[in-house]
């Protein structure tokens, strides 16, 4: 084994982490500015040009905050929980290809940390580790709000993980591989979002729930549980939870872009490989804006509705979508008729409309109280 490989791994790992950390910092700025625009406010604009130094000021402030570990908590777990939350959120990005490769000092540098042939399996497994951090944080805090928040959170996350897993299955069926790079290359002709828009939508909804974003920010539910599982955390340990949430937002948008929106693909990306990260970055920013927009405009779904939405609507729908996709591709293959292939989006959208109709019926059927 070559020592340069080790250097390359360490440097790439470090650089990726730094990209994500910077991304996290500036995502907070981006979110605050975008929210402010939507809410007829200005947002942070004092530190630096257009408030661009605000994230740095925040980081410095957090470093100089008291690192408090209250006496009533289970100390080891309490300190490990934020670490256990933040590490998966960083490592998740290892298999996401930012581009192909480029030459640096005669050495071929690939624009991804690892090219794992079961990349998607890796994603599902790492993504589910994050729930440990949250539930352990809730439990070790020895606080009722935190406990309730942690338990709620774990139940919600595992419920939506099923949907997430089935959406991954849809992507695998379309890409005919578990390797992220293969899936991207498969989209050279056509982004998968065109073939399977509903799959992309379900994936996006499930990720919103996975990263505990509005309208699924149940575990935090400021109005009900004050801060949920991180009620007892302060200073840098709290910042790690915060960091994990935003990094997961970024990474999961990267994954969504990779699986359904052509990843790093774009014009001239084959000639200039360094354009790959730029394209991915642009797609991620647009997807992130969607998340921020939802947060700015939607109230929170009540917990019982959220669970029944996950179990009764999204799970069957995602199962149906995966199945429709497979059937369409298979029939097109076997009968050699492209019509079946193009019926996939049509049938999927019909399935979606049926699901929406179910929700509407449920909303209308709600009884009018005890009168």
């Amino acid at each position, binding site marked *: 084994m070559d020592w340069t490989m080790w250097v390359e791994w360490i440097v790439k790992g470090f650089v990726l982490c730094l990209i994500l950390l910077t991304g996290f910092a500036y995502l907070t700025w981006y979110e605050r500015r975008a*929210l402010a625009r*939507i*809410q*007829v*406010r200005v947002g942070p604009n004092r530190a630096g040009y257009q408030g661009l130094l605000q994230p740095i000021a925040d980081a410095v402030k957090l470093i100089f905050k008291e690192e408090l570990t209250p006496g009533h908590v289970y100390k080891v777990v309490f300190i490990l929980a934020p670490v256990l939350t933040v590490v998966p959120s960083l490592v998740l990005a290892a298999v996401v290809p930012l581009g192909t490769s480029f030459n640096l000092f005669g050495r071929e540098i690939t624009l991804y940390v690892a090219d794992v042939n079961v990349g998607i399996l890796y994603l599902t497994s790492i993504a589910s580790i994050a729930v440990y951090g949250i539930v352990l944080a809730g439990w070790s805090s020895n606080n*009722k*709000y935190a406990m*309730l928040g942690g338990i709620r959170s774990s139940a919600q996350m595992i419920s939506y993980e099923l949907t997430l897993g089935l959406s991954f299955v849809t992507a695998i069926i379309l890409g005919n591989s578990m390797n992220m790079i293969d899936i991207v290359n498969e989209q050279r002709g056509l982004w998968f979002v065109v073939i399977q828009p509903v799959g992309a939508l379900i994936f996006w909804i499930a990720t919103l729930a996975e990263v505990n974003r*509005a*309208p699924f*920010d149940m575990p935090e*539910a*400021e*109005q*009900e549980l*004050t801060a949920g599982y991180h009620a007892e955390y302060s200073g840098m340990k709290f910042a790690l939870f915060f960091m994990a949430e935003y990094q997961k937002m970024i990474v999961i948008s990267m994954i969504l872009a990779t699986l359904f929106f052509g990843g790093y693909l774009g014009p001239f990306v084959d000639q200039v490989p360094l354009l790959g990260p730029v394209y991915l970055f642009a797609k991620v920013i647009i997807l992130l804006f969607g998340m921020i927009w939802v*947060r*700015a*405009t*939607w*109230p*929170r*779904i*009540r*917990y*019982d*509705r959220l669970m029944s939405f996950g179990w009764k609507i999204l799970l069957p729908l995602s199962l149906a979508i995966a199945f429709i996709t497979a059937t369409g591709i298979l029939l097109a293959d076997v009968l050699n008729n492209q019509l079946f292939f193009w019926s996939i989006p049509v049938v999927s959208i019909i399935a979606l409309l049926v699901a929406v109709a179910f*929700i509407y019926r449920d*909303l209308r059927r*709600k*009884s*009018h*109280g*005890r*009168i």
Partner: protein
Amino acid sequence: MTAPASTTTIDLVSRFPEFVTADTRPGFSGFIVKKENLVEVATALRDEFNFDLLSSVTGVDYIADNKMEVVYHLHRTTGGPGIVFKTQVDRVDPMEVPSLIDVWAGADFQEREAWDLLGIKFTGHPDLRRILLWEGYEGHPLRKDYQEAFFEEETKPFKSRWPEGHHTYAEFKNPFRDNIKLPENFKLDNYQPENEDQLYFSLEKSSMKHTSENQMGTDHMVVNMGPHHPSTHGVLRVAVELNGETITSLKPVMGYLHRNHDKIGERNTYLQIMPFTDRLDYFNSMANNFGYAVTVEKLMNIPVAERAEYIRVIMAELSRIQNHLIFIGMLINDLGSMYTPSLYAFEERELILDIFEAVSGARMMCNYFRFGGVVRDIPADAMQKIKDLVHDRLPAKTDEMERFLNENEVLVGRLKGVHVLNAEEAIRNSVTGPVLRAAGVPYDLRRADPYSVYDRFDFDVAVRYNGDMYDNYLIRFDEIRQSLRILEQALKQIPEGPINSQKPQYQVRVPAGEAYGRVESPKGELAFYVVSNGKPNPYRYHVRAPSFVNLTAVETMCKGTKIADFVALLAMLDIVMGEVDR
């Protein structure tokens, strides 16, 4: 709606000749009931005379007559003037009066308040704990022989503040930190919070877990929501017993913002109280001023200048609009929407506050009303602003908010079908205001018992019939529209002329007597009960705060609901802690 019956038609004395007498003190009205027969008379009033709404319960300490008096004000939800009856006990502890909680559940908190502040023991009350003060407080501060720490004189102006004809501030005599008298041997460092066993005991006692079937032995968890909680609208504390996500029992705990408004009222002169009323419901200082001014004018028996009446109505309705806008914004905020609707609502509110600032000099603490009129006339440019707002901007913005919000699926899903109160529960709990009207009772004081010049305007009483959260939310929009209708007419009809029927004066002469004046504040029925003995200060000054009384229903409303709904239900009552704790 039946024709409003006047007080004179009710002859309680001939109905109960043995134990009811008419109150014949000069300036007083109503009936005096023997306390042994109180429940009987109350039940008859409710069932035979249809006085279904218990408006207010309060006590007055007549130390000179050695009597403690409990005053009850009843009204009909069909409208018309009310009836007042009193009962008296000797001023010897324990002063026991039968509780009327079985007749009107709305007596609950008000009787607890009377016990807390006056020491009247309501026998038969199931949960007679202190409500505004804490357990372990010594004495009952509204008794006339109670003297607070650093007591100087019974009434203002205190002579010590004018030592040589110059005013000195109390703060100079008693600097900050020294202005508290602590019990002897009290060390702040080893302070132990008061014992709360009584609260948790009463929480346990009213729990549903004894009635509902066994939930596989899961623990019921007692959680305190508040006082430092983002969604209890201030420092309200609610002790909640949870089974998972479901509330099995709850008890509101209040008083963290208590300043004994009633006692402040007794210390100050009539006009000095006016700015204090601003602080009750600090969103609607105009409405509070209105209620207090109406009451004292009733007592003084003076007319109000014609133009001032219209200015009052304009201000009160603007205040209602901004209150409801805030309500809608903050409700959706409580549902978990990241501030966006509330900030849109705040934008409109700022414009209304601009008007308040233009007329009174203050945006929130307006102190604008005077007995017989208002302080200043509306400046011409402010008048133009009001017209622009009422005719163009506010209707358009209300439409816009309705268009954005009413059909939002999550909002509808969260609000529709979630029961708040039905008409019967609401009336029993003395709930007034939009919550009552959303349950299908068209009880609006502007129509039911018109005050000021409201009888000259053409408007509908907003009413909805389902009593769920969605109706409670929509009725706020309805009321904004009706307020705009009133404003349009008021702006058209407003006459020129003086703005006060009286001369500007610092001290008003108030004849002896009692008065109960009520107005429709945006949160419900705001009433003031003022007893005068002819001196410059009121003998008794009591505020019937709508937020406080509406809160009585919170237990009925929230038991058995999800904790997420609890937050929204609490928002539905539209409480302001300045008014609850007083």
